[in-house]
């Protein structure tokens, strides 16, 4: 079914594990981003809170990019094809 299933080959298992862990972290990060935007739209955050959350998410984004680079992964590598459900993360 899924063409991009995680292949637990001995040579690549370390990298695949990193990719899997980063995928989960990236999913959570994107969910937090969406939630933050939703909360801002609802108007229940103070300016200070918005600023703090935004900065935290931005730093997390930068850190993710560094980790990806370090392990030679592209943003597309941090995605899972869930077959008929589409992909785990939005593709754009």
């Amino acid at each position: 079914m899924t063409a991009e299933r995680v292949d637990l080959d001995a040579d690549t298992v370390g990298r695949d594990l990193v990719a899997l862990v980063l995928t989960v972290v990236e999913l959570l990060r994107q969910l937090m981003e969406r939630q933050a935007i939703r909360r801002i739209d609802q108007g229940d955050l103070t300016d200070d809170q918005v600023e703090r959350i935004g900065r935290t998410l931005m730093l997390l984004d930068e850190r993710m990019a560094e980790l990806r680079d370090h392990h030679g992964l592209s943003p597309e590598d941090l995605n899972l094809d869930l077959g008929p459900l589409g992909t785990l993360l939005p593709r754009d």
Partner: protein
Amino acid sequence: MTAAPCTTGVPTATDVPTATDASTATCVFAVCRGGDPAALEGMPGHEEGARVRLLPLGSLTAVVQDVPADRFSEEAVRERLSDGAELERCARTHHAVVSAAARCAPTVPLPLATLYLGDERARAALGKREQHLHAALDRIEGRAEWAVKAYTVPARPDAPAPAGKPEGPAAPASSSPDGPGSGRAYLERVRSRKRACDLRQEAALRAAERVDTALRGLAVAARRLRLHGPGPDRDRRTQMLNAAYLVDGDRDRELAAAVGRLRQEAEADGVRIEVSGPWVPYSFVDGGGTGDLGC
């Protein structure tokens, strides 16, 4: 593949071949009415079987082939059709015979691997469906199926989307990425990226609906089929429309002109249209109606 539920006549437990007729089964490809199907006799079918022949069914003619029963038992067929290469071979053979039949006479294609244990059973089963087959022939005679698929074109990095470039309109004038306001600015960038993505998606959906509406206007009947998931390769397209249209044989040009026009319009919304046809109207055998197949 169209699913005329009861005709996938893979032998069932009650149909276990007797010792005398165990060796061959009758594989039915299609049913024709009138025309000159004699030309089909002797063409090759599935490679394990005999040559294609005709089986008269009263007012209709079935296009059949004798195949070895052991290679076409329920289990063997299930196994073969779950193997990609084998499935392709079977489907191509089936399609070749069906297409040849359709060139000779008005033809109802039957589903792949429609098997009966001998001519008598085939005749009995198809005889029961005679009315249905006539209705299908009335519906598809002189018409062809066109398959139309629409995909989103993946956004190119140079597309005019507000990508991760500095400061959207709402961002404050802070120049330092770590300066005051940078957290809010980051969230605004995320928001506009997401909004652009949503807008693209909505535009693509609307474009696909426009295509469908326009083509329905030209068609006698239309069917929306299940959307395909992402392809096996790193195919980043998303399918937005998977439809089949039953079109009168003399409206081919009109269809081509409409598709040309729609293609240009859709391109502006990031949607690419693929058209294939004319096909034997596989998707319109059942008419999408009551489905009274009598078994």
